[in-house]
């Protein structure tokens, strides 16, 4: 079958004034991709547009942030490791008849795990991440970027799109719905950095007056292979087929104790891995903190107000994964107690966690490093302090802490969790009164079956 390349460009169905924003626009973007005899390259799908941040209500140039100048009260940052992806709260991919292929809630939190584990600082600075995702990898550079409009063209990291090419005729077209995250989730001032890491210089109050963001000129585009007339006719006539794809499901938990047990009924038959990240619940939707942080549990730095913030790491102990009550896939807890006490990197935890996202034997680039892992102040650290600070040339000293495990990296066909709940036990020295949000994502395989034009999804 001869095919030619085409770039399909689609504007939002609910374009309205052309401005998408939580505060001063429409917080949902919907794209309708028609049913057509073309083959979509899902990996090439991009959501493009122009991203703007403002320090005050009103989308005026006078209300722009002044991060670079360091003007008090005008610092508005977005997360430097996920960029514009931090503004996507959930994504739904369905067909034009309403059958849902994938829904990812807390998509931004998923990105805060998988992007830094797949890209190094070099990728962020010089590898296209700063151009496509609007993610510079470093806070100060991200601040500079946020001072003015910048263009983005983000891929969507959904399993459905990242797998095999998609026959748009057979899937009966697609409807992508993107729900934007709240302004206080996406935008933040520099309070945490300045007060916690540079405690003597902080006067940050930016965002108190209503920092917000907006997207405009939004468009979806993707590569399509267009067959010749004969091929198109064959595609139109074909009503049967099936294919496997990977999808993420998301769960939410709140950790309040030093021995947290969660039982999740994920009810999927081919689960490949699970990945989790956590953040103090008080940081979420709070313009003083980065809601995209993926750090280990935190406690107060012990400083008197107003410099009192959660920035000291709580000592983590063991993480245990179970399936139907039995420890699986590891028959031992992932222990960090000793490494955390010694103030060194949690090698075992990092190894297992990375394996959940990618095959560690092909690992070559990631944000993780000693600078990110050992930079938080850790009360029980033998030094009692962070080991690295933010660096000009190296990574920011902000931790990248995930928890996760791969259930099946060999056959890639996954393990059944139908009727067998996933158990997660996290032991730490977390004290009460500091709840942490735990975002859990499972990657599993789905199968779509097309039978005489009827679509069914088996998971």
């Amino acid at each position: 079958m001869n095919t030619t390349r085409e770039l399909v460009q689609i504007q939002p169905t609910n374009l309205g004034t052309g401005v998408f924003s939580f505060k001063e626009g429409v917080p949902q973007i919907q794209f309708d991709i028609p049913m057509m005899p073309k083959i979509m390259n899902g990996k090439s799908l991009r959501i493009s547009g122009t991203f703007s941040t403002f320090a005050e209500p009103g989308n005026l140039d006078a209300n722009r942030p002044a991060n670079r100048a360091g003007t008090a009260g005008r610092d508005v940052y977005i997360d430097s490791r996920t960029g514009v992806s931090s503004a996507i709260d959930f994504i739904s991919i369905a067909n034009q008849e309403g059958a849902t292929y994938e829904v990812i809630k807390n998509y931004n939190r998923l990105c805060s795990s998988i992007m830094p584990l797949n890209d190094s600082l070099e990728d962020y600075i010089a590898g296209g991440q700063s151009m496509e995702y609007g993610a510079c990898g470093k806070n100060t550079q991200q601040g500079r970027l946020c001072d003015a409009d910048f263009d983005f063209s983000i891929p969507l990291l959904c399993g459905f799109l990242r797998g095999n090419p998609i026959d748009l005729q057979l899937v009966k077209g697609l409807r992508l719905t993107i729900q934007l995250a709240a302004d206080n989730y996406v935008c933040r001032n520099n309070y945490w950095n300045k007060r916690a890491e540079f405690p003597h210089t902080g006067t940050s109050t930016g965002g108190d007056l209503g920092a917000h963001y907006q997207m405009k000129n939004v468009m979806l585009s993707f590569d399509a292979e267009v067959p010749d007339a004969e091929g198109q006719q064959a595609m139109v006539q074909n009503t049967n087929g099936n294919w496997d794809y990977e999808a993420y499901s998301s769960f939410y938990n709140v950790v309040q104790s030093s021995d947290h047990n969660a039982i999740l009924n994920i009810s999927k038959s081919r689960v490949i891995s699970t990945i989790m990240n956590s953040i103090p619940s008080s940081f979420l939707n709070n313009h003083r903190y980065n809601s995209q942080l993926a750090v280990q549990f935190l406690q107060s730095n012990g400083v008197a107000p107003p410099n009192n913030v959660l920035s000291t790491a709580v000592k983590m102990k063991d993480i245990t994964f179970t399936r139907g009550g039995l420890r699986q896939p590891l028959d031992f807890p992932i222990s960090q107690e000793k490494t955390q006490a010694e103030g060194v990197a949690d090698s075992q935890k990092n190894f297992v966690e990375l394996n959940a996202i990618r095959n560690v034997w092909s690992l070559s680039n990631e944000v993780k490093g000693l600078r990110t892992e050992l930079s938080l102040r850790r009360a029980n650290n033998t030094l009692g302090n962070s080991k690295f600070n933010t660096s000009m040339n190296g990574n920011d000293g902000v931790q990248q802490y995930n928890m996760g495990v791969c259930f099946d990296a060999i056959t890639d066909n996954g393990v059944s969790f139908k009727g067998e709940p996933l158990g997660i036990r996290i032991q730490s020295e977390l004290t009460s009164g500091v709840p942490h949000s735990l975002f859990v994502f499972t990657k599993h395989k789905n199968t779509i079956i097309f039978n005489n034009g009827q679509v069914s999804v088996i998971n």
Partner: protein
Amino acid sequence: MSSGVGLPNLLRTDVMDRPVNQRLETDILYPVSSNQQVAKFVFDRKGILDSNSCLNIAATLPLLEPDAGGAFTDSGSSLPSSTGAMALVKRCFLEIGGRRVATLDEVGQYATWKRLHFSNEYREGVLQVKQGGSDVFTGSASSAYPPVQDGTIGRRSNETIQTAAANATATPKHQRLTASANTTPSWCLPLSSLIPMLKGFQIPLFAIAQEVCLVVEFNSGKVGDSWVATQGWGANAGDGRSSIVLPQLYIMADYLYYPDEMENIADAITNQGGYDLLYDEIQTQNAFQSAAGATATGFNITNQLALGGKKVKSIVCQRTDVATQLSNIGNYYSVALASTDKYNYTIDSKPFYSVDLGNAALQFSETCRIDDAPLRVPQVRYSKKGGTGAINGFTRRTFNGYNQTSEWGSQNWRGIRLSNAAGEGLRMSNLPVLHNNFGDMTGGEEIANYNNRYFITCQRMINISNGLVNMIE
């Protein structure tokens, strides 16, 4: 005539299907003729030429008078920082039996584009060592001391032993061109970079009865073309011409032998119709764009690309200001406009994009699709969006005496992929391809004349049989 038989993997750079006995011979191949304009190398008729064979090249630069006057001295000048030693070569072509089967014009410009695909790690560990240049950008600080993290990028700074005076970085000494052939550095250029046809193809020299030769034409030796001056010598740089060190000009030719397989390959080539080789040929085309006006104004240009009958895989467009050399980069750049311009291509009277591309990130993304690999370019090096002249995201720390802010928006290469998912090019009709580019020019952009240079990747095929090489397409 085509045989319909593709290359066996002994003649490709792939992994072998099975273990095979192999022998490697490396010869130093000097040119049969050479001067400061051109050199011709003729390969021996033996073995299989490994495409990773390298051209060894060196250049000297005469002593120059400092701008401040005084005795002539070594200027500490170096190769263009984004191009390296590829800037010493203007044009290169491969001839078989007296016929030119592959040509690359504007070697330095094309190499600059290809170099954007390499990671910082590869540039630092391999490219800068073998080919020179300095294009690793990472987080940097302002020129103030103590260092201020003001969100800029630049060449690597020394953050631990910086003193008040040490806010400058410079090309390392071992990369600086000197006036003596004994001390000037020599470089190593892979043949597959000089002749893109050789990417993935090993020439079976033993089975080709005709003369196989490589012709290398050198660049002018002028500042900006072949080298760039450090600050303090800029005013007198026009007096200097770099010279190729001819005794150091040779090819380190690797000849591969597969004792158990050569006979089969020879048999296939001589008795069974031979092999077809599909390869990429890079064509270049230039279009002059005169100044848009005396004051800030809109512009709208349409350039025609005559590609009738060719199978085109991609088109890359580069825009240079004909009168401007950038410090440290020379003439090897593609300048972005302050307000992102839009473009579209019309192919067979139909616009390729249903909506003109005006989003810098989407333009970047489309350009990355050409090789299915991301360009390793920081946002501020690709686009000028979000910055202003003096405060543009690059550090004000200097490199070779020049403020690095001149790198802003200096690698705005934009391209379109026309090949399908299988890598098959698009057959062009006799109607010319139209490249329409429009937008606004401000801040002095409007008074400059531009050259739009197109690198067009065409799919071609040759057949190697009976010891002869025939062009099929």
